[in-house]
């Protein structure tokens, strides 16, 4: 077996300040999702929501290492990746509310959200759909000698799709600058990992392509950050891709509305103890002397920001019905719209 297990965080190089920054980012995701669920219950969000709650350390740990020129593809569970990358919660809410001020002008919703300025190439409604696309971005970087890196987030369930296989193979073959980040939250929809694959570690699929695979505690933001650094450096150096498996757990059901009764109570309890925000807050207190006030500040900054964001989003205009006809094709084609 070629895959190695990333050592658990020793916290090297993380100051209190940096730690609080990471915590705030994770908190922003958590609270964004909690508020989104409420707003959906209030009827403000019409479409699907797949909450990222519980997995925050994975997105934040990965994204913290990236540079501005890097690009990402994501999944149906994409809010965490977007916020991890630094997206604006206000425009995200506006998109969820289906408003023109949203990232996709109300055309995409949760499943298709993008932020072009951040190189966030999109959530995706198709399981495994983002993987080949990230591969293609990495191919273009390689072809043009760019030192940008592509990151593809996907789940344990997605690793059973053909798209995973085809892209892993090409990426390894061509030594593309890409990170395959499998967020293993133990379930694909209502199906346990043990019922969808034999292996315990998705990372053990990497050797099948001649690629390194690494397992990391996906609830430990520092540990994720450390393995990511290695993988990003490898990618930027032209040494090719890495498969990073972040072991994590979603606290809620598959989608907002799923009661997740298919999960054993003990399992849920066990993972709740390993809540990445909880454990990291504790670590910051004990290892970096974060004060209660420090932590409270983080929370209140996050809440303030989100309430401002929500208020802004609520004020955004609804699209016109006829806006549905735009953007089918690039409008400037031959100077006229083609419908």
């Amino acid at each position, binding site marked *: 077996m070629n895959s190695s297990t990333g050592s658990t965080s020793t916290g090297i190089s993380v100051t209190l300040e940096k730690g609080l920054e990471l915590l705030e980012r994770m908190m922003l995701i958590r609270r964004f999702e909690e508020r989104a669920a409420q707003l959906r219950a209030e009827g403000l969000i019409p479409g699907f929501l797949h909450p990222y709650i519980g997995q925050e350390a994975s997105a934040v740990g990965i994204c913290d290492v990236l540079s501005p020129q890097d690009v990402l593809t994501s999944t149906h569970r994409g809010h965490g990746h977007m916020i991890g990358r630094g997206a604006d919660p206000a425009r995200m809410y506006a998109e969820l509310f289906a408003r023109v001020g949203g990232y996709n002008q109300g055309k995409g919703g949760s499943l298709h959200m993008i932020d072009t300025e951040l190189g966030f190439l999109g959530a995706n409604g198709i399981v495994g759909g983002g993987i080949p696309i990230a591969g293609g971005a990495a191919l273009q970087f390689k072809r043009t000698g760019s030192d940008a890196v592509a990151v593809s987030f996907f789940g344990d369930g997605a690793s*059973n799709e053909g798209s995973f296989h085809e892209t892993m193979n090409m990426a390894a073959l061509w030594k593309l600058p890409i990170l395959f980040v499998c967020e293993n939250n133990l379930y694909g929809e209502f199906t346990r990992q043990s019922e969808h694959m034999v292996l315990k570690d998705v990372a053990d699929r990497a050797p099948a392509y001649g690629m390194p695979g690494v397992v990391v505690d996906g609830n430990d933001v520092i540990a994720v950050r450390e393995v990511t650094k290695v993988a990003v450096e490898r990618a930027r150096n032209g040494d090719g891709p890495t498969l990073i498996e972040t072991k994590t757990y979603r606290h809620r059901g598959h989608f907002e509305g799923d009661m997740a009764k*298919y999960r054993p109570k003990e399992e849920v309890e066990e993972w709740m103890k390993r809540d990445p925000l909880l454990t990291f807050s504790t670590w910051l207190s004990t290892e970096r002397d974060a004060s209660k006030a420090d932590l409270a500040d983080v929370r209140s900054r996050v809440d303030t920001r989100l309430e401002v964001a929500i208020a802004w989003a609520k004020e955004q205009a609804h699209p016109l019905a006829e806006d*549905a006809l735009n953007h089918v094709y690039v409008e400037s084609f031959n100077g006229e719209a083609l419908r």
Partner: protein
Amino acid sequence: MTNFTYADGIRQAIAEEIERDPSVFVIGEDVGESGGVFGVTKGLWDRFGSNHLWDTPISEEGIVGAAVGAALVGGKPIVEIMFGDFSFLAMDMIVNQAAKTHYMTGGNLSVPMVVRMVTGTAGSTGAQHSQSLEAFFTQVPGLKVVAPSTAEDAKGLLISAIRDPDPVIFFEHKGLYVGRGGPAGDVVKVDPIPMGVGKIVREGSDVTIVSYLKTLEYAQKAADELAVEGISCEIFDPRTLVPFDRAGLRASLEKTGRLLIAHEAPTRGGFGAEIAAFAAEDCFELLRAPIVRVGARNTPIPYAPIMEKYTLPGVARIAEEVRKLVK
């Protein structure tokens, strides 16, 4: 009053057919213990066990391929594609393999498989979870295509589809599932409904409206509105798209001389084009007016409800087009 929903019809057809023929089984993502994302197979796992409700990894091509292979050696698989949009990942197995096997083998093999596809919009499900893909399959020689609009038709046609020796694509509109995941309704006995036999849902004399799946409801409401204005609509539900009841449509056009086709798929290249082409070719002498198609506008399905509603054919657009047509 009986409580018998579209999902009940589908569930009962599956249950009765498994009982009748143990080679029948369901295969798909989360179709087993959980009863499916839309609850259609709920309760069947308890009754028939995992051997007849086979849960799979997320591997659409592999799943449909597994159904094809099982069908070649005696199984009668019913595949559930949770959202029809995902069928694009299994297209090779459906179009290049299942549809052509009987033909390519000179009649020596056949693929008695049903692919149940959840189709259409259900409120801001977005561009990748809302498509109406009938015309991808109706054009494929070797496939049969079914699109029921009522609980009875869903049951009777699914029974026929399961017994059918050929691969059948079976569309189920999300908007017709009622009380998703709710308790199972009453068991209603329904005889198998033969393929290729349409149904006059409403008699009329001014125009024939062909419609199916969820859009049929809108057509009916439009007809109600129009009746008040003195416009008499005949509504024809083909129920199966391949085979298509050409004689039934022709008989209706003999009465009305006008044709409007309404469906949720985009107008361009939707199955309405085929119906229109048939009528313009074989019923030309009956036509007193242009053939009108009311499909979704030619866009992907947008997320925002306002835009989504605008793209879809609804009661108002159907009524409006009929008014223009009979003027």
